[in-house]
């Protein structure tokens, strides 16, 4: 009888350990914060060059993450990229002349979208498009330009 009890207890401990391991992986490793609700609204922005911006890239303001890139499409008529972003609902004061810029983390880091506040009183709402944009800075283009100029 005692033996069966030991087995049951250790099996119970095993199941708990497995569940705890999963919780550890979810909370500590993937850093899910249950408090941060998925309350977001969508904004679009057109860029002439996105150079390696990827889905789920950060959208940040003053270096603080306020959203994620949710979709990247191409407008083949104008040769522009349309980037859709899910922005935290709490950031609801982005004015209609707010700017979006694609920047790089560090010199070789990943690309992210940086939002700069504007001055207008009217605010962007769900589905709006940011018009003041600046595409990605492509190092190769700059080097190419430099080489051509030095040639002259």
């Amino acid at each position, binding site marked *: 009888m005692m033996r069966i009890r030991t087995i049951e207890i250790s099996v119970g401990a095993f199941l708990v*350990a497995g569940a705890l391991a*999963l919780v550890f992986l979810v909370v500590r*490793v993937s850093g899910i914060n249950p408090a941060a609700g998925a309350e977001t609204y969508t904004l679009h922005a057109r860029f002439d060059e996105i150079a390696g911006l990827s889905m789920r890239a950060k959208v940040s303001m003053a270096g603080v993450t306020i959203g994620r890139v949710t979709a990247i499409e191409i407008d083949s008529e104008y040769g522009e990229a349309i980037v859709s972003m899910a922005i935290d609902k709490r950031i609801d004061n982005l004015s209609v002349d707010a700017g979006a810029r694609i920047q790089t983390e560090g010199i070789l880091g990943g690309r992210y979208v940086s939002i700069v506040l504007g001055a207008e009183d009217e605010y962007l709402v769900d589905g709006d498009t940011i018009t003041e944009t600046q595409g990605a800075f492509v190092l190769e283009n700059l080097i190419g330009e430099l080489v051509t100029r030095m040639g002259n």
Partner: protein
Amino acid sequence: MLRFLRLVGQRGLDVLASFGRAGILLFLSLWHVPGRREWSLYVKQVYQLGVMSMGIIVLSAFSIGAVLTLQFYTQLARFGAQDSIGLGLALVLLRELGPVVTGLLFAGRAGSAVTAEIGLMKATDQLSSMEMMGVDPLHRIVAPRLWAGFLCLPLLAMIFSAVAIWGGSVVGIDWLGIDDGQFWAGMQEGVEIGTDVGKGVVKCVVFGVVVSWISVYQGYDCVPTSEGISAATTNSVVYSSIAVLALDFLMTLVMYGEFK
């Protein structure tokens, strides 16, 4: 030439027949709701397959986590990128090494034991005497082992990944002096719950089913002699390992591959 063809055909039919027998075995064993009295059999198998595998899982997880961190460090420190060790470690473990190594260890530690046990029961006519007493060995012997395997492998893999990341953090943060915050923040920044943790769990579940199924089937279908049991045990480990590796490749291709 004709003999060769006949041999190939014969082998092919044999393989097909054993797939069929394995399928029937799986169906008949799982087509059964365990009664209250049988519950303790399941608990006992979880103990045998899961709890008893903890030792090797925890030990190998810790050493794999530690070694991975050391290797990442020596390479990444050359570019000053040692801060992304945490992310690399977590991704490698959650996506590939956790499920695969656990699958292989489980096949070696628990699968072989199941095969040998069932094989010996068959060789010593325990299975047929059970049938004689009106107890279906599929329900009493095979089903608890299958279900226990289905349950234990994913749990062990979760424990494996968690322990390995902990082992990596011990080596990386405490010995090599990687920044604590960077290690965890890099991990949390890059690891996605669905694509990394979720798909890892899917892999574990698939491996759990396949490894338990192969082990049980090899035991149940073995030639009831001492050579037969030893061959079945070897086959069980070999087939399980091949299945785990091949399925891992296929699943990685589908889950993370470029064609969507």
